[in-house]
């Protein structure tokens, strides 16, 4: 599917890494997270120019034609750098559009996303579960025209989105709709998020006109979610590795009792355990990407394994990192808590670890 070689992939990841090292410093992150939009337009433009916004979009629609493997690799960089940007939302939207198999819609919408238009997906409500039961919107047809009702929540970058893909119940199943953010009856409210690099919105739909994309149902959502879970796993693995590196670096230089604190077994052994966690997360995320890319029969297993293993690993690594730093990481000025906030957000963004453990067993047939 993807035409990337291993070298292409490495070069791409390297470009992104260097861009983020330049334009996504801790100061940039803090500036973005205090801003209304939650991201820096110049950084987003630079990412779009690198092709990142259209990474998984087909070249026919001006994208790079990357697949899960390329996405995962870039998301490791995104996670390491704590990138505050609508990349994840746009990627979900692009994947969902492509999964609908509506050629006209793809022609109409995907090139815009590849060029930086901000799109997002509205599906779940208050419960925040990305499952058929969690779908919060209902669609009703009046002749040829569709209208949506209900309240979607946890919509990523919902307030900034220029295009909303809505998943809604229809008679006998689900359907996917295109909605304009300024459509009549649509009210968007920003939610206050614990991870301040994250932008979430609640979207209240009251008889909002919408355009159905193809005849796709839940299977398209499932395809999108698998790709999104791989992306999230990559972000988590990258974040875990980076926050551990940061902590190990500190442990080498921070002196207490006349010794670097990393020479104490209490710290050294925590670091060793976290290396196991973060390397396992990396292996899981990459294996899930490869399984999905190759259409392996056990792809669902691999994806749900990565989902809970990476989520737990990142949460543990970021949490222990604060403990290992000691008092300095109890200050707002230190970046460790930014990683913890992201890790805690990622823990529940697309379903809790317990949910993915259950799905993992089901995928195994157990």
């Amino acid at each position: 599917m993807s035409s990337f070689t291993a070298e292409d992939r490495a070069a791409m990841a390297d470009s992104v890494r260097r861009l983020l090292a330049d334009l996504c410093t801790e100061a940039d992150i803090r500036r973005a997270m205090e801003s209304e939009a939650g991201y820096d337009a110049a950084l987003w433009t630079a990412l779009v120019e690198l092709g990142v916004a259209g990474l998984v979009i087909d070249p026919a629609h001006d994208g790079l034609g990357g697949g899960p493997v390329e996405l995962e690799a870039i998301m490791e960089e995104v996670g390491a750098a704590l990138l505050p940007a609508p990349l994840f939302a746009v990627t979900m939207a692009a994947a969902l559009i492509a999964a609908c198999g509506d050629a006209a819609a793809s022609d109409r919408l995907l090139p815009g996303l590849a060029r930086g238009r901000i799109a997002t997906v509205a599906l779940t409500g208050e419960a925040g579960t990305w499952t058929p039961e969690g779908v919060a919107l209902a669609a009703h047809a009046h002749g040829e025209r569709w209208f949506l009702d209900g309240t979607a929540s946890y919509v990523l970058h919902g307030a900034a989105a220029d295009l909303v893909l809505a998943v809604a119940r229809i008679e006998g199943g689900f359907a996917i709709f295109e909605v304009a953010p300024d459509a009549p009856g649509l009210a968007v409210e920003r939610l206050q998020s614990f991870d301040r690099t994250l932008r979430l919105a609640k979207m209240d739909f009251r008889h909002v006109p919408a355009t159905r994309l193809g005849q796709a149902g839940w299977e398209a959502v499932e395809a999108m979610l698998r790709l999104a879970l791989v992306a999230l796993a990559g972000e988590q693995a990258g974040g875990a590795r980076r926050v551990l590196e940061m902590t190990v670096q500190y442990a080498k230089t921070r002196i207490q009792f006349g010794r670097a604190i990393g020479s104490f077994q209490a710290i050294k052994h925590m670091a060793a355990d976290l290396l196991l966690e973060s390397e396992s997360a990396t292996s899981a995320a990459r294996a899930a990407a490869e399984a999905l890319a190759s259409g392996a029969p056990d792809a669902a297993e691999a994806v749900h394994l990565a989902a809970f293993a990476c989520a737990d690993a990142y949460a543990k690594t970021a949490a222990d990192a604060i403990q290992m730093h000691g008092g300095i990481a109890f200050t707002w000025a230190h970046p460790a808590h930014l990683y913890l906030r992201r890790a805690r957000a990622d823990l529940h963004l697309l379903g809790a670890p317990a949910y993915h453990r259950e799905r993992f067993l089901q995928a195994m047939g157990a």
Partner: protein
Amino acid sequence: MTARFLKPVSDDELRAEVRAFLKEHWKGLPHRSDQWTVGPEQRAWQAKVVDARWAVNRWPVEWYGRGLADRQAKIVEAEFAAVRAPGAGQDRTHLYAITAFNFGTETMKAALLRSMLTGDINMCLLYSEPGAGSDLAGVRTKAEPDGGDYVVTGQKVWTSGAMTADYGMLIARTDWDVPKHNGISFFFLPMKQPGVEVRPLRQVTDEAHFNEVFIDGARVAGDFMLGGLNNGWRVLQTALAYERSVMGDAARGPRRGGDRATMVDLAREAGRLGDPVTRQHLAQVIAWRRLNALNNARAKADLKLGTSSSVMSLGKLAMSRILHEEARFRTMLLGAQSLLEGEANPRADDANFLSLNAYFTSIGGGTDQIQRNIIGERVLGLPKEPEIDRTVPFRDVRAG
């Protein structure tokens, strides 16, 4: 100088006297939200308590006390507690006054002790530094003699109450040519002077309960040194022991306060009380808190019986786990809701706040790792690690 003891009285006489005092004078106090200072009504009340010699019953007569034995002092405290009147028992609870009483010069005690007991003087702790957290003996704030005074320069952190404090209990280095524990002195540093600047410290929870204190050429009288020159480590150890015994379970609940929802309530509210996985987790979280309470009760009972207890020292370590695990449980109950915070999302705000604030206990006042060292060495008697910087002159010790 007056006699060190008042005339002995019987328990009944004592009880009658304190009851009569409370009955005549105690009218209650208005509610006050400021946690750092003592309000004017309470100060007036405490002055009455001090002058009637009820504040520090165990202390001698020349220092506002009655020279009572512990048993009789507790009678007084029980009577105050029965009517919820503050001000008694400060010889057990007022960390600063106890330290001043035990280690201060006569001059200093005469100048400060009464005002400390009445609440007219506010205090803070100037121990930790950016480079001396776990390793307090590594402080680099220096105090240099200048006439009868000392001139202090350095930086302190994690100081609560510094904004309102009149004096700070300070450890500073007075000799750089001896091993680190031997060159520290202990002072009561006046805070309201030009060389002392207090800046609030934004915490990871986005609150600012603590401060950084920048000290640049601040002055403290030689009489305000406690325990003598270069004897500060010993004074500090004693003060820390008081602090631990006074502090007990000082961990805060949810930010908003007032909410007494139990873990069971939270699980029920989240619709998860019927979920077997949640129930196992719930039982364990409740158990950790119960077990800690049982340990504390046993420690207290053991103390009464006069046997020493290894259980006491475990409380802080236990509380660290309790707080982190309760926060984790709350987060799991909330699921995606835990992505949110703010007043519109009180349960999520609590869970997220508590998940961060748990580090106050697992890091502050000695990290869990330091605490395990202490338990291993002082309670279980395991040997210390080789301490490579214990015997070298402080100026040769590595810092970073």
